[in-house]
């Protein structure tokens, strides 16, 4: 029987590339595609795929929260997180969310097939940078003084994180309510709880928080180069 894979990325061109890469492999088929996290959760529940590949930077519901929701629905889902960044925080969040694979988009052509093969054989796959981080965390355990510990932020619930992302993407409370099939009043209650928990006073604070915590990602233009070749 074929291994069935669900692909979630907001760029159709990337999904096409991933599909072409995965379907070259005998015995694998892409059984569905989703263009945001919410659609990924819906399709996963409908299609019950063997492996789910989830991009981190997606609108409406980002890939990390998608992973959390998927595993809350069914802890047997096998999720590979695909990301443009290997920052410590994204890696930690992906591991915490329960991802079994972590692949950098820039290395996907090389690593994604290995990652799917690993999951198929009930193993995990992480880009080498993750192994370093996990090992560093392991070695640090047992030391009495922890260095560079960041102060703990108040924890938002899954629903609050979802609403934070939608508000930071520029939706009004009414629009959020319609997207999540909630009443505007319920969304406004969540909104004031979020603002109170985080001690925020404006939507601007919320946007900055959403960017810092990888709920949303922003695109930056390449730096202006006065002359000669430079890195973009």
């Amino acid at each position: 029987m074929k291994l069935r894979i669900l692909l979630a990325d907001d760029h159709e061109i990337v999904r096409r590339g991933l599909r072409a890469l995965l379907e070259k492999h005998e015995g694998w088929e892409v059984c569905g595609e989703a263009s945001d996290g919410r659609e990924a959760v819906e399709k996963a529940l409908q299609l019950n795929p063997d492996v789910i590949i989830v991009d981190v930077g997606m609108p409406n519901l980002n890939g990390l929260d998608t992973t959390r929701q998927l595993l809350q629905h069914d802890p047997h889902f096998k999720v590979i997180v695909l990301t443009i960044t290997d920052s410590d925080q994204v890696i930690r969040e992906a591991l915490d969310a329960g991802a079994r694979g972590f692949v950098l988009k820039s290395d996907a052509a090389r690593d994604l097939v290995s990652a799917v093969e690993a999951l198929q054989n009930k193993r995990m796959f992480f880009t080498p940078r993750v192994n370093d981080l996990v090992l560093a965390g392991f070695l640090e355990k047992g030391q009495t003084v922890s260095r560079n510990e960041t102060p703990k932020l108040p924890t938002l619930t899954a629903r609050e994180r979802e609403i934070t992302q939608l508000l930071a993407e520029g939706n009004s409370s009414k629009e959020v309510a319609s997207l999540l099939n909630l009443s505007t009043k319920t969304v406004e209650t969540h909104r004031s709880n979020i603002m109170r928990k985080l001690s925020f006073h404006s939507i601007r604070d919320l946007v900055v928080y959403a960017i810092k915590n990888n709920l949303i990602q922003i695109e930056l233009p390449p730096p202006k180069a006065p002359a000669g070749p430079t890195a973009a």
Partner: protein
Amino acid sequence: MTIRILLVDDHPIVRQGLKTLLEGHSDWEVVGEASDGAEAVEKAKDLHPDVMVLDVTMPRMNGLEACRVLRRQAPGLEILFVTQHDSPQMMREALDAGARGYVVKSNAARDLLAAVEAVSQHRVFTALHGRTVPELT
């Protein structure tokens, strides 16, 4: 007539996606690929493509710089940007650098074929998100 295309993007997965889309057209041929602007300039010398599909943000040499170099090096080559930047300013900069086309990556599946068709006939094709402007100059 066969249109010879050189594909330039730093993400192999994106190149693969663009390639499957372009190769759906029987008369078009992807003659080569490059992963940054400097490699694009080098490969254009050898391969003489008709159209270059070019990303903006890339390491070593970005697409805008490559475009300026290619304008001088290969005046007959038509350049089409396919980029994540859904911005009129970036589009203007791309056209000023000498590109004939500008398409946003998130809409590439919708706009790319029409854009390659247009620029290969030396017509301008620009499309920002949800808005196609075929003859803006």
